[in-house]
């Protein structure tokens, strides 16, 4: 895949995620796609991710994947972005996330996602703790 094709695939992926188009995401994931989250420390399959999406989408009124900074490399991309969400009570929150994606034949084969679960409360509009200083 060329740099341009990888970049286009990356943006198509995030546009589909934002637009809640699960069918399109199913086309973007390779059959052997694996997704790893730093917060959970484990891998899930693309199919498991897709199955969880409809319920996940009910959590917020709206989500947008903004401030996307995409860099491509041989066989993949790294994207830094801000996830903005509007909760059902109107609370607006943000998460700052980095994803490293691997691609093959126009599809995503692996996603490694890094986010900060310490910001989940602020994202959801719940009381927050603080990063422990030592």
């Amino acid at each position: 895949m060329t740099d341009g094709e990888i970049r286009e695939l990356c943006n198509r992926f995030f546009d589909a995620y934002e637009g809640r188009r699960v069918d399109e995401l199913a086309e973007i994931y390779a059959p052997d796609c694996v997704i790893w989250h730093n917060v959970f420390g484990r891998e899930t399959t693309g199919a498991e991710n897709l199955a969880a999406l409809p319920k996940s989408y009910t959590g917020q009124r709206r989500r947008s994947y903004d401030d996307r900074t995409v860099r491509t490399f041989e066989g993949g991309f790294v994207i830094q972005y801000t996830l903005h969400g509007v909760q059902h009570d109107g609370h607006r929150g943000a998460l700052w996330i980095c994803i490293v994606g691997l691609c093959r034949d126009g599809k995503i084969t692996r996603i490694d996602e890094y986010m900060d679960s310490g910001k989940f409360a602020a994202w959801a509009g719940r009381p927050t703790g603080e990063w422990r200083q030592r």
Partner: protein
Amino acid sequence: MRKDSETLALCDRFFDAIEQKDYATLERCYAPEAVVWHSHDCLYQPRDANLAMLKDGMSRLKKMRYRNRLIHVFEGGFVQQHTLFVTHPNDFVGQMDVCFVAYTRDGMISRAYEYFDTGQVEKFLGPRS
């Protein structure tokens, strides 16, 4: 034109210097204007403050090891995924999964972004006493 091998060498030199507590080499990896952004406070830390923080860690911690390094070089920088293992003075070994995105110029890091999960702080710093 990409200079992948030079960028890879810079990446290795940077993390190896921290592991080996080689402050002089570490300092040379940063461009004069270098800033480092962290996902826990979403702030850009100036070069001097970041170096002071690293120097403190290098002197206070028994060991810092960057394991399972996965590196990809892109035009103007690199991304490294790793697990940082630190051995604290009380011998507790903490660990944290980190994604480090660096933008480079002239063989130095000019801007970097570090993503990690503060929700797993106990795993990194040890149980609260």
